[in-house]
């Protein structure tokens, strides 16, 4: 059986690194590049992307 981590924030993509702490965070200034990075991360980590508002996207494994 495959063992995976579930219900955990795997990564965050943000426009300001001070808004995120404790998880791997990626800096992306504008909206388009944030979307692009989040898309790649979600496909790589097999997680869903959620928008926390204020320019922070998180990738969560469900």
């Amino acid at each position, binding site marked *: *059986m*495959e063992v995976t981590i579930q219900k955990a924030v795997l990564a965050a993509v943000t426009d300001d690194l001070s808004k995120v702490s404790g998880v791997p965070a990626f800096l992306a200034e504008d909206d388009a590049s944030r*979307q692009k990075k*989040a*898309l790649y991360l*979600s*496909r*790589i980590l*097999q*997680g*869903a*992307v*959620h*928008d926390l508002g204020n320019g922070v*996207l*998180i990738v969560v494994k*469900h």
Partner: protein
Amino acid sequence: MDYGGAIGLGLLAGILARVLMLRSDYRQYPTYPHGYSTHLFMGIFASLAGAVTVPALLEGEWTAVTFFLLVAEQFRSIRGMERDSLKALEDSELVPRGTEYIENIARVFETRYYIVIVVAAATALGAIKQSPLMGLVFGAVVFMWGAILTRVETIGETVEVEAAPVIVRGSDVLVGDIFIFSVGLKESQEFIKERALGAILTPKNDEGRDTLASQGQRQAMLHDAASILGVRRDADNPEFAPQAKRDIKTGRVAVYVVPMDKDQGLLLEMLRRAPVLESARGRARFVRLGYVGKRHLHAGRNRIGGNHPEGGLGGRHR
């Protein structure tokens, strides 16, 4: 009729019963050819055991009872066999069945063998005591009794299933007025807007409410719907996984799917026809306090409830 003939007739009737119960429907099992043959052969053994027992007992061969118990033990392992094989598939399913659905399927398979045994025995008994024709009548009656006893309720009997629009508001995805989840990716939001289907399930009575509360039941419905409509997801885009979320204020459930086949009518029909799992069946009707409580404590609650003896929308009492 002589014993040989009666055993033969019982065997045939039992096999026939097994074949009739071996339908493969949209619940997808057993659609595997090998699963099919396994159950066919096991059915022959069950049937033979049932048919042989009757003449043995009539001859006063009481050791037959011991062997019969051994046989029953064998068929108990059917449940374990089905459970194991379905569980093994679970990890790679895009929309898993869930443990409750698997348990339900396994239990159904086990019970079917007991029905086969009893049908074969009844046929053999009728054939020996009366005539071959009476034997077949006996077998048919027992088969029907088994079918009535194991009848599966469908969701549509206790739950109103209606179409509802999937609304994408900013990053929030809603079905009707029920919040499902938030999607951060713009691309996925557009995709969902274009292709997702929604439905709202409203309980007609307390049984429906209890049924919808079961997480296993909801997963089973999603699996059934996805097995016919297809599902537009792969392991790396979980945002397209079908979901069923409960509105805790009203007990309604919103179903969200992103199907390959965007057919609203088919989705509603699939949800209505989904089997009610035994473990998820509403308990309200079986509990005396349910009636008493409703009459005295929640007299005004009968819009959704109303399952008390005086009438209302309530379900059938068994």
